[in-house]
């Protein structure tokens, strides 16, 4: 007889709801042994009470329509929340709330879980009072209100947004335990708005002399970033829509810039002003922050592109595998330069790799969901994913990044992430060489 190795199965640890172990007994004991069980044992062996005893929701009347005018997630999903990294900042108005990537599916981030980064607190701005000014090297400086903007030809496109400092705490060593904190300054939505190129055309921008556009927010920080004209004319959107509804206040209601492939700070929220100019502005977020320190002491300025990157989200740090056997290992891949072409996954810390399945759609400058089957044999393993984009760029190892950029860059860490699975099923954040 052909003896295939037996698939590894078996409980590593009991799921709490199974602690009476009725199923294990009923399914693994032989007929004779079951017969030997007396009384209560026999009753349990008949099956799962969740099936045998009809629950209230099958035997009663449920809730009416519109009981909640704006629907909310199930009570059982309450643990998936945006969270701050303790001690990262002192003031909540100048801080970050990370997206719980460990529990999400597909590529779209639910609006309420989109990561937050504010420089001087967020506001819920009255859209009737909001104005956008376009001026500088233009034929005519113009003012638009929301009514005006929503009359212009619109587009809806799915793009990821990633903070330049995402994974920034991990440049030197492992610093945080879970994927929410290592990679959670990352979200992906369908954004609706007018292409910036249309607005620039409408105002008669001098695109020969005016090689740069300054974008400015209406909040207290008046956040400002320079966008190169080539990019401004390419795929930048002045957006009001987010996943089919208006932007959330925390994400710039009623108007923000969408700069596909570029770090989040350039996606100016509460957008009030666009100025066309002949030089970059060297604003505070371009000379003191969002600059990458290199080993020679020079800071790289205007490092904007979010290079190809991926991470396994399930299983990930802080989680535990209950059983040996089959798993659907899943994660996210993205590139600020285009589409994800391929994702490879390793279960042995990078010695051997297998190509993962990409879920559709695979869109340019958007998150791409990947999956791969894995049969866990109960031994230790190191899980990694590696993305390749359509320019041929391969996501590097942390050692390869450090060799060029050192460990103090803060920004643009797109290294391969490693998750150690211990024999007891616990998953933790590690770095390997």
């Amino acid at each position, binding site marked *: 007889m052909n003896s295939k190795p037996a698939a590894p199965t078996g409980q590593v640890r009991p799921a709490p709801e199974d602690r009476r172990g009725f199923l294990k007994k009923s399914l693994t004991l032989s007929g004779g042994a079951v017969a030997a069980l007396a009384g209560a044992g026999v009753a349990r062996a008949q099956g799962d009470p969740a099936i045998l005893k009809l629950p209230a929701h099958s035997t009663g009347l449920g809730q009416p329509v519109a009981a909640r005018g704006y629907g909310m997630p199930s009570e*059982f999903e309450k643990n998936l929340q945006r969270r701050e990294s*303790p001690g990262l900042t002192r003031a909540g108005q100048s801080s970050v709330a990370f997206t719980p990537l460990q529990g999400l599916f597909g590529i779209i981030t639910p609006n309420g879980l989109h990561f937050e980064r504010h*420089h001087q607190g967020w506001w819920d701005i009255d859209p009737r009072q909001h104005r956008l000014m376009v001026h500088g090297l233009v034929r005519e400086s113009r003012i638009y209100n929301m009514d005006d903007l929503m009359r212009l030809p619109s587009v809806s496109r799915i793009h990821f947004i990633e903070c330049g400092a995402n994974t920034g705490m991990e440049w030197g060593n492992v610093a945080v*335990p879970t994927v929410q904190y290592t990679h959670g300054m990352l979200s992906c939505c369908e954004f609706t708005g007018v292409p910036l190129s249309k607005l620039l055309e409408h105002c008669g921008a001098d695109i020969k002399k005016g090689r740069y556009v300054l974008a400015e927010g209406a909040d207290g920080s008046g956040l400002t970033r320079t966008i190169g004209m080539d990019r401004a004319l390419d795929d930048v959107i002045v957006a009001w829509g987010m996943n089919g509804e208006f932007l959330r206040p925390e994400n710039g209601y009623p108007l923000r810039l969408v700069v596909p492939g570029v770090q989040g700070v350039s996606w100016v929220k509460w957008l009030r002003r666009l100025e066309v100019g002949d030089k970059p502005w060297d604003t505070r977020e371009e000379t003191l922050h969002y600059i990458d320190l290199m080993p020679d002491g020079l*800071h790289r300025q205007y490092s904007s592109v979010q290079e190809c990157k991926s991470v396994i989200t399930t299983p990930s740090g802080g989680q535990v595998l209950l059983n040996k056997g089959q798993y659907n290992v899943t994660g996210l891949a993205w590139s600020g330069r285009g589409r994800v072409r391929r994702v490879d996954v390793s279960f042995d810390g990078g010695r051997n790799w297998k190509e993962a399945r990409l879920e559709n759609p695979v869109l340019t400058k958007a998150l791409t969901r990947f999956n791969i089957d894995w049969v866990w044999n109960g031994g230790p393993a190191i899980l990694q994913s590696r993305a390749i984009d359509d320019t041929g760029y391969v996501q590097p190892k942390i050692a390869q990044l450090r060799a060029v950029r050192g460990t103090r860059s803060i920004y643009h860490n797109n290294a391969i992430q490693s998750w150690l699975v211990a024999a007891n099923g*616990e998953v933790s954040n590690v770095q390997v060489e």
Partner: protein
Amino acid sequence: MSRWNNAKLVVFALAAGACVQAAAQTAKPLYPGVGRAATNAEIAAWDIDVRGDLKGLPPGSGSVSRGETLWEAKCTSCHGSFGESNQMFPPLIGGITPEDIKTGRVAALAKGGEQRTTVMKLSRISTLWDYINRAMPWNAPKTLTADEVYALTAYLLNQGNIVPDSFVLSDKNMAEVQARLPNRNGLTRDHGLWDTRGKPDVSAKACMKNCGPEPRITSSLPDHARGSHGDFVEQNRLFGPVRAVSLSGGAAVAAVTPPAAAPAADPAQALAVKAGCMACHTAKQRGIGPAFAEIAAKYRADSGAENKLMAKVKSGGQGVWGNIPMPPFANLQEQDLRTLVRWILKTE
């Protein structure tokens, strides 16, 4: 334009033949009726940016000594008396040498190990001026006059030993100060991460089999740090093939229990968070400012405490709990202010 005029135009175009029609078509405005011209006053009100080459810098001046007075009143609560404080934000001042001012490169940035202060990174004087002008003070941005911004900029430069005590900064000498900034030569745009066609600086290969030596774990979280980001059980779904690791000991896997209803948020507490009080205060522990419990204990016997504290929150104060001043919160509504103060006075 009236309806009649429109009609007349159409008639004119029809009568004048194909040539005129073509001309009228090329002149057809893009997106008619959308937006309007900006007035000069509107542009002046919003166009506040000062560029790296100092374009946009308004006239004005301010001395180091005036800056010091303003600093004590408006800035010390977050940045400390000399801009060196690390409590609220990273320090502004420290870490540079006279040699750095000569070379325009801060040597400590190449060495590493030290905390990077603002003045160590500062490569454009415009940045300092523009940011103070647009975003400071933190809870009342865009309320400083141009002269005040010059004075505060002068004070900071003085704290960084870049200008002398007697210095008066103005639009006339900003460029001279730029030439003295310790890290003025410290920025580079020589990389492929800006341009849409930029080339990557790191290149990796996608080996598939028997790649490299046996992997070695070089970094992991020490046991004591595993709980630094809270209880994983509260941050993961309660069912599914992977669960949260329980850090609380005992059962290694969290029991499946429906989440308890969140306690109703205290509206006064929400108000305190929103107003920014919690940046400096907590209920029990002294931070930058006194704990609310300390304030409540001090004023317990004082029948006029409520009005006294409301005035203090509104206009700011200093000296009761130490030298760090409390900034004014002038924008708080009377009713919110009362709710807040009553809540603070109830803290035990």
